[in-house]
């Protein structure tokens, strides 16, 4: 029985093996899969974006006469002026809005989420023993990033403790990242085993 599902299964299995051939040697098989991936990824991104713009901008603009939406559309089209030397400056304006808004949003949020709130959390722990350890180690690690002080003497000892703390953190990341990557291996192996079982009629 040749159904689209069956063909799909074989295509997927062959692609998996083509990519794994990389472990033996980098070759055309791997590159073919890689280029296919980039082609689909960019095509898919384009499709999804066009659909989103159609439903949230073009449709309301045309059918519901929300003419205020025309302005961002014009700005969006202006981005493409960068391909001609004479009109290149036009593309700077929409880019300026994009960068301005994006930077402003990140900056204003950062001061709370990643600065003040982190300090507050460090100095108001629920568990006093571990909380104190966290506070001291955080301070030492932070000291490692002072660039106007040479790491010598007592200060050098602090920063060394900080570097060790960060090494422990790196170890934690190593362990968990290994899990993430192995999970993907297991997922592909599970798939190949299931294909093999189907072929063998098990």
């Amino acid at each position, binding site marked *: 029985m040749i159904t689209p599902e069956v063909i799909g299964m074989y295509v997927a299995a062959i692609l998996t093996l083509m990519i794994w051939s990389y472990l033996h040697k980098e070759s055309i098989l791997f590159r073919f899969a890689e280029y296919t991936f980039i082609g689909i990824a960019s095509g898919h991104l384009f499709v999804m974006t066009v659909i989103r713009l159609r439903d949230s901008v073009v449709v309301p603009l045309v059918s519901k006469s929300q003419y205020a939406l025309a302005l961002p559309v014009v700005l969006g089209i202006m981005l493409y002026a960068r391909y001609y030397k004479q009109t290149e400056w036009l593309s700077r304006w929409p880019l300026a809005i994009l960068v301005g808004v994006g930077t402003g*949003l990140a900056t204003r949020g950062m001061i709370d989420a990643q600065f003040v709130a982190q300090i507050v959390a460090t100095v108001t722990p629920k568990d006093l023993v571990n909380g104190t350890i*966290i506070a001291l180690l955080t301070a030492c690690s932070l000291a490692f990033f002072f660039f106007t002080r040479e790491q010598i003497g007592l200060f050098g000892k602090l920063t060394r403790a900080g570097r060790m703390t960060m090494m422990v953190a790196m170890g934690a990341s190593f362990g968990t990242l290994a899990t*993430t990557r192995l999970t993907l291996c*297991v997922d592909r192996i*599970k798939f190949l085993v299931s294909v093999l079982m189907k072929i063998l009629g098990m």
Partner: protein
Amino acid sequence: MFIVLVIPVVRPLGLPLPISDMTRESYQAVENVPSGSSVMIPVYISIGLWPEVEPGTIVMLKHLLRKPVKFMIVCWAADEPKLMEGALAKVADFARENNKKYGVDYVNLGFIPGMETAMAAFAKDVPATAPADTYGTPISQLPAMSGIKTAKDFALILYITGSDVAAMIRQYVSAYGSKMVAFATIGWVPSFTPYLSSGQLVGLVPGVTGGAQYELLMKSPGAGLATTDALSLGFIYLVILAILGNIMWQYTERPSLRTKTSKEMS
């Protein structure tokens, strides 16, 4: 490596997996969502990492479908709407059993381009940022979306991610005081513990392990548990490799490294 991973896939070890506090607390946070309220499920994960979170996503969707709450999915990149479409298809029977309908009880709003800008705009004005779902249906025709105006209208945010949570914390937790549970690929978990201990996250489900533990909490064993089972041998193998590497190094290479390398200078 390959062989070590194939064996448990073919013949599962069947070891029991203990449930960690992190997963239990996250489960409780979802369990505590009041009846009749809405949950926001933002998704941002590279398609390459999706297999790690898919089992957990399915079981969490089941959890929400079982409860008298609504949920809406919104995606910060282009691959996720179809990935979530696939996940919703896998829980379609479960939804029917619980009398939940697409559009009435849950919605897939699809992709909104712009990353942090999109996150902030959506938080501020949901209907203006997402006037239609991923299939082009205007939200005025989707009862699940009625009464949703800003981030404040969501009782909980369940962020499925394979990337940093900082931007979502900035735009939702800092700006609106939202309650957020992150379901992240496990590699990110050590980077997120500062946000958990500060209360900026109310829960953190640690990737494939968390997904498997969630399956246990839901009493619905699935693909996640099968994967963690298969990982056991892989880890033993890696640990043995690390130990062997250290032993061999002690006896063979070490003397030559006694000359100062840059690593020892640090």
